[in-house]
């Protein structure tokens, strides 16, 4: 029996640098809420590539919707204030639409990536917990970058 030729199977390669740094979409979701919109969306975009997500185009479209939609809403709210359709009191309620848009996009991104992440992790694609990055971003990145974004349109949309 031992003299028989043995069939050789290829070894499993180690996950690549990109795949090894993919994370559970819960972390970018928390990053969006605790650090800023720009941070969470950038992390979601990175995750989409790292996971090799089959819904990448839809995910990138959601990221674009969150950014462009936020800018459009900020401009619309500003215009409504200038025209007197909203006052300082009622604008607090209207601003909730901005948060809802961002959160809706973040939830949708999270739902799309969670199935992909499950398969990725199950088949040993490598995964990194995002806790360390999230804490570092909250302690260092947010206080450093937030003032640089300013209080203009860009700052309001990205924060």
């Amino acid at each position, binding site marked *: *029996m031992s003299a*028989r*030729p*043995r*069939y050789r*199977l*290829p*070894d*499993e*390669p180690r996950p690549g640098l990109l795949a090894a740094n993919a994370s559970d979409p*819960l972390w970018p979701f*928390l990053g969006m809420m605790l650090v800023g919109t720009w941070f969470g969306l950038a992390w979601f975009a990175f995750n989409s590539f790292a*996971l*090799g*997500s*089959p819904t990448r185009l839809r995910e990138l479209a959601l990221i674009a919707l969150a950014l462009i939609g936020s800018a459009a809403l900020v401009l619309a709210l500003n215009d409504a204030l200038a025209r007197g359709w909203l006052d300082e*009191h009622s604008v*607090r*309620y209207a601003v*909730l639409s901005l*948060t*809802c848009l961002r*959160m*809706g996009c973040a*939830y*949708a991104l999270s*739902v799309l990536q969670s*199935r*992909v992440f499950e*398969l*990725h992790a*199950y*088949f*040993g694609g490598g995964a990194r917990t995002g806790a360390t990055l999230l804490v570092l971003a909250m302690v260092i990145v947010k206080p450093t970058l937030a003032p640089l974004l300013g209080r203009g349109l860009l700052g309001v949309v990205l924060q």
Partner: protein
Amino acid sequence: MSSTRPLLELARRQMQIGQMDGAIDNLSAYLGENPQDARAHALMAMCLHDRRRLTAAEHEARAALALDANDAFAHVACGQVAQSQRKPRAALAHFESAQALAPEWDVPLRQIAWVYLYWGKPQQAREFVERALALDPDSDNRALAAHIALDLGEVADAERAAREVLRQDPAHSEALTVLGHALLRQNRIGEARDTALWAVRNAPTSRAAIALMLAVKMRQNPLTGWVWRLNAWLASGSSRRTIVSLLGVYLAIRVATLLLQDFGYAPAATLLSYAWLGFCVYSWVAPVLFQRALQRELEDVRLGAEF
């Protein structure tokens, strides 16, 4: 070939009872002497896929297809690998090819239903599982139909269908997990726990069985039970419904906070904000910590490679 033929038959039987490592061993010995056997390469791909060796599984599935492009079995193996590589379109293309090559075979249709179910399209999955059932009303197809019913929120139908499968095949892994989840959704926790124990005893390394046990333990724990109920309610339906529900709750809390401030109840508004924050942190952190602790506990259950 005749002297190694029993190895192939043995590998097939080992696959049927879930002894994949043994099957890989025998298939390696068989393929050493018969490297041109497409079916053996496809079987090897399926075993390797089960053992989570995706690169080797892809290599074997491609070899099977290169040797016989008209083998439906090879297309099914390729489709399974593509699905696990997060390539649903490629997987569907392979399963559709297999279905065209073997129109009377139910497996490609069941696999298509799996792809749709996994990617959150249970209605489309039902269409294909019904076609598979029309060809062969076997346990696997009926268990998948039960699974789809559960995903669509038809809990009583899912329970009934799973019990029917279990009457004929009491150890059917998927039917057991569907039954367990259906019982859990109906708050029949004792019965769900017994079902989960049975499922884990039958298949100690099955991800679905372990997930069911986790769900039961989570539901039983007073700390995480209510989070489980909320998750189960949110998850029972389409992802769009889940997102709209979560946004609705958030919006209601924020509007209530603003209204309390406007009507001069600032301390109550602050209290509500902190309560909401506490709820959010708790609902994220508690289940994750609990699941990790339990997963570690369950990881101790491992079978030797020679089992």
